[in-house]
């Protein structure tokens, strides 16, 4: 893929998102800089996935706003949690990857020549060359996540949102996919990922947002992931749970 013109910044302004009046994200303000690589971390129920879905346009905010600054829906690629996809659906690997072309080809355009080559190249880049005609149902969780990463590559978006991309997959796959994330970062794309593994964030992510429904800290990963902040996130989160 070619070097990328930097996407605009994503600004979050006093964002509150609630489910049934119970806030999942509470008064969050900040900005994801163009081309930044940020991990969103925090306790369970801290609103990490909710924030990602709001940026992806899947959930409407109750208060405040997410400003994409001219970025269109096509410019944002979103990787849902594995559990939200029907992996028993009868579809070939190459077709599942080619879904990434969906916004380009629309209802009717055939997938031929150049497009096929792009899909095959993406599959090769995630280490699944030769898997084209396998059914997705026959893949392991790790292999399936590789397929979804190949689909993300085809979407060729300036902003990439990953919801727990390394949950429930083997370490080898996680390392390979992390390399891809770094490659996207190197190409100037903005990448925002929800992660559980604090050590991985420390090792691989320049920026971090520590969320406990309300923001605890946001900035350079080393400054955010201090023992004090992590402890405070746990404390705030427990307080929310007790109040609920």
């Amino acid at each position: 893929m070619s070097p990328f013109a930097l996407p605009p910044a994503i600004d979050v302004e006093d964002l509150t998102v609630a489910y049934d009046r119970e806030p999942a994200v509470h008064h969050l303000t900040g900005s994801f800089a163009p081309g930044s690589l940020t991990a969103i971390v925090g306790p369970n129920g801290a609103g990490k996935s909710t924030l990602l879905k709001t940026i992806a346009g899947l959930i409407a905010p109750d208060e405040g706003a997410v400003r994409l600054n001219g970025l269109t829906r096509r410019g944002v690629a979103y990787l849902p949690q594995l559990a939200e996809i029907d992996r028993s659906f009868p579809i070939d690997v190459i077709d599942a990857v080619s879904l990434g072309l969906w916004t380009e080809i629309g209802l009717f355009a055939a997938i031929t020549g150049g497009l096929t080559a792009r899909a095959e190249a993406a599959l090769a880049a995630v280490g699944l060359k030769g898997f084209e005609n396998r059914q997705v149902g026959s893949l392991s969780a790790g292999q399936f996540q590789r397929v979804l990463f190949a689909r993300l590559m085809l979407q060729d978006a300036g902003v990439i949102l990953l919801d727990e991309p390394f949950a429930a997959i083997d370490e080898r796959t996680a390392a390979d996919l992390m390399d891809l994330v770094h490659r996207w970062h190197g190409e100037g794309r903005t990448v925002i990922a929800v992660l559980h593994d604090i050590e991985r964030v420390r090792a691989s992510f320049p920026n971090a947002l520590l969320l406990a429904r309300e923001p605890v800290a946001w900035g350079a990963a080393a400054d955010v992931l201090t023992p004090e902040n992590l402890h405070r996130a746990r404390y705030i989160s427990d307080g929310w749970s007790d109040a609920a």
Partner: protein
Amino acid sequence: MMLYAALIEPFVEYGFMRRALVACFALALGAGPVGTFLVLRRMSLMGDAMGHAILPGAAVAFLVAGLSLWAMSLGGFIAGLTVALLAGIVSRVTALREDASLAGFYLISLALGVLIVSMRGSSVDLLHVLFGTILSVDDGALLLVAAIASVTLVTLAVIYRPLVIECFDPAFLRATTGGGTLWHFIFLTLVVLNLVAGFQALGTLMALGLMMLPAAAARFWAGAVWSLAALSVAMAFASGLIGLLISYNFSLPSGPSIVLTAGAFYVGSILFGTRDSLRTRYFPRAHFHED
């Protein structure tokens, strides 16, 4: 000659058998692919609910216009679509999930339908609507069923991609192009249309039979959306053909004969299919070994 008399002669001798056979073919063409998507979307029971929901529309039309094919079809279509839309709206604006809201509306609809028919019609009329009469399919009914099959296939061709994406990964569809709702309602419309087509022949109680049973059976043989749909069409048509012959040769009612034949395909597939059937699970062939 025995075979000829049993298998071929009925269709050569009797126009009503020929028309019934063609009606089954047209039904199979529409119902196969629609049933395939119903199974893939885990909406089998919703299809059943919609089948019952069309009853009051057909009943009201029957009271107003008598046993008119077009009036009853239109009435059934409007009733089915109304129930589907109401259920969809309620599940989107309230906390009630779609299956529950649909069950609520279809039960109201079904009770209304039975009430209306029994108020004015005889019990024979009610049986007519509930169980259908494929052997009395006339040219008008054939045209209707064929038109619905054509509209279904063309529409499915148009919405095929978003429909597949919405089944496989709904969040991806919403995140890339927004709203799966439009495709969902177009698909629901197709379901209602095909149920209306089916109820002429099989009645509201069994209209779903030619849709669900072949589609569910196909899951044990085929592994791609297109082959599932093609196999469903083939099995639905075979069910129609065999069911009609059984009905003719043993003087049994045609609707249940057809649906039971489809049921035999279904049970046979569960037992002997090539994919995840009981046979492959309990009597697997030796797997490959690396030497």
